[in-house]
């Protein structure tokens, strides 16, 4: 039982560290400098990767929420919670890098670009979800309530995206081209390679953090249980 999971952890670690260095090398040295924007364009690699992971983490939360409604287990509850926490970290990174990108590319800290706004609302939903989990009450009750909220939040995200895109095109029709991801007219193949590699690396990072977070959370649960048992024993 314990051996394979330790093996997976080690493999993740062995893969993650070199991958991180390679992706940094790819970003800063190997990939070409974009002509219009200069070096600042390199923000985009990690920005897109973290945005991808932010959505992935939310999808994972939604997945475990659905499972939890079927049958609540502590394992699923913990996984959903850690995924949401990591999601908060990555949405924050996405937002901040997005803002810096906006400043360097369009000289404004904030644009109502649909993807960016969706990420902002995603962040608020994540935080609200974590608030629900912080409620007082028995574990089963919170599991159920947070699962229900997670599902509702999940349904909301695509609608937010659609609504904002629609709103945007109606308000000021296509100012920034197709948005930043496509960089106007197609990405150079070298850039695409770097981007894909970065996405892979950050996904690995997400997996690694998930496993660590889950492990710690499970330990906390075990300790808490042991503690309450000891207290009960001492009291009686």
């Amino acid at each position, binding site marked *: 039982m314990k051996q394979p999971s330790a093996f997976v952890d080690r493999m993740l670690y062995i893969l993650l560290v070199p991958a991180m260095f390679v992706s940094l090398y790819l970003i800063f040295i190997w990939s070409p400098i974009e002509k219009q924007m200069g070096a600042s364009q390199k*923000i985009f690699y990690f920005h897109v990767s973290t945005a991808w992971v932010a959505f992935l983490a939310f999808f994972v939360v939604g997945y475990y929420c659905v499972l939890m409604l079927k049958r609540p287990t502590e394992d699923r509850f913990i996984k959903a919670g850690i995924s949401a926490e990591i999601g908060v*970290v990555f949405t924050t*990174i996405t937002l*901040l890098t997005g803002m810096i990108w906006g400043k360097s590319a369009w000289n404004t800290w904030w644009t109502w670009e649909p993807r960016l706004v969706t990420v902002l609302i995603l962040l608020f939903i994540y935080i609200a979800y974590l608030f629900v989990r912080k409620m007082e009450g028995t574990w089963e009750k919170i599991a159920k309530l947070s699962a229900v909220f997670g599902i509702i939040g999940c349904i909301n995200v695509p609608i937010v995206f659609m609504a904002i895109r629609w709103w945007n095109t109606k308000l000021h029709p296509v100012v920034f081209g197709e948005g930043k991801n496509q960089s106007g007219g197609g990405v150079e193949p070298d850039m695409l390679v770097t981007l894909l590699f970065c996405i892979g690396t950050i996904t690995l990072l997400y997996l690694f953090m998930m496993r660590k977070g889950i492990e710690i959370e499970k*330990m906390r649960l075990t*300790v*808490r249980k042991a*503690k309450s048992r*000891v207290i009960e024993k001492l009291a009686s």
Partner: protein
Amino acid sequence: MGYLFMAYTIIWALLAGYIFVLGKRQKDLKKELKVLEDWKSEQ
């Protein structure tokens, strides 16, 4: 260039922040375990 530097600083800072939170949890765990062990030895 300054923006690039700023962006990557923020990325690493936030990632480090989360790892710090995890580390703090682990530290708290250690404390709890110590309390438990103390109780055990007292019994």
